[in-house]
């Protein structure tokens, strides 16, 4: 098993996402469509390939986990129903479901708020980045 991942990660990601990453045909449409592409270190098509290979170490350390916004453009356009956003969510959950795995410590939030920021942004960020 590659460093940084656990033997059960592959099964967990498949169970959480409901997606079989190995049917990906590497067309790259997900990466070509992704509005956060330039902010990611592992682009969506590579992310899917690494899931299919069971190589979770780089994925668990990736910036991509925090830059995918679940806009579902990749999910909409994937010709093989691989749902890259769901795979990214599943790997993010591998991390944040563990004790101490939260990405956005609540004590940092107040300093980042402003008068106009809508409640939905705070709830969304807390739910996506933390457990």
């Amino acid at each position, binding site marked *: 098993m590659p460093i940084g991942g656990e033997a059960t990660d592959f099964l967990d990601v498949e169970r959480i996402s409901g997606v079989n990453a190995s049917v990906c045909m590497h067309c790259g449409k997900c990466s070509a469509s992704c509005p956060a592409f330039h902010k990611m270190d592992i682009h969506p098509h590579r992310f899917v390939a690494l899931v299919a290979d069971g190589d979770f170490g780089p994925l668990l350390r990736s910036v991509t986990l925090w830059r995918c916004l679940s806009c579902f*453009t990749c999910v909409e356009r994937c010709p093989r129903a691989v749902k890259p956003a769901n795979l990214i969510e599943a790997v993010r959950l591998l991390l944040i479901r563990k004790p101490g795995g939260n990405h956005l410590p609540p004590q940092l939030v107040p300093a980042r708020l402003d008068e106009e*920021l809508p409640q939905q942004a705070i709830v969304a960020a807390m739910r996506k980045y933390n457990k």
Partner: protein
Amino acid sequence: MNYYPGCTLKTKAKQLDAGARRTASALGVEMRELPEWQCCGAVYPLAEDEISGRLSAVRTLSAALENGGGLVTVCSACHHVLKRVNADMADNELIRRRANNYLALKKAYAGETRVVHYLEWLRDDIGFEEVKKHVARPLDGLKVAPYYGCLLLRPSDVMRFDRPDNPSIMEKLVEALGGVAVPFSRRSRCCGGYVALDDRESAQAMTESVLSSAVKAGAEVVISACPLCMYNLKNGAGENKLPVRYFTELLEEAFGLADAAKE
């Protein structure tokens, strides 16, 4: 109609809530706010094994069923969550069983409620021809760029809102109100959403990409149905700036209700 405002419409986006109610009422329909509704959860839990994040949506959907009639939403995020959890309750046996086991509702819920966004309600239940009849002050050729963002459109097999890559519902509304719809290429591209809380620069880059496309298309104003899109488009603008309004604000103006709204 049963009506679900959601948290943001009670605080930072009060004008969206008020505009939806006032314009519905002008069309002869009272939006009846569901009693004791809860936060939708803001984001749909993509994890198939996550039940708790779906429960508050199920409570809302089941309460609407009990009340009779469908459920109208306005906020894009609430709509997305409620619509998708509803689909889960109808189509995903495991989620349905586990959610019902936990909630022990009077009657088990299986996705029976019809969830419609206010825009869909205008198009499908009222009809844009009827909307047109209520226009007292046409928008007079105002060039309006409808911004859809993500949550109303995708994934289209569940949302069934409009064509995901070439939506037209807001363009049709603008035309019905006497404006000129300016479709722009990035109208369904993400605004940056909640990433503003983690990395503001990322959100600004995405917003700039959306706004530059609207400016290039010749828009005078951008409209949105989402308070978070509104926030990003207003606060993340760089070189390309445009006024951003809720679609309900234009409706109120065209219906001649805008003066009443100011009081």
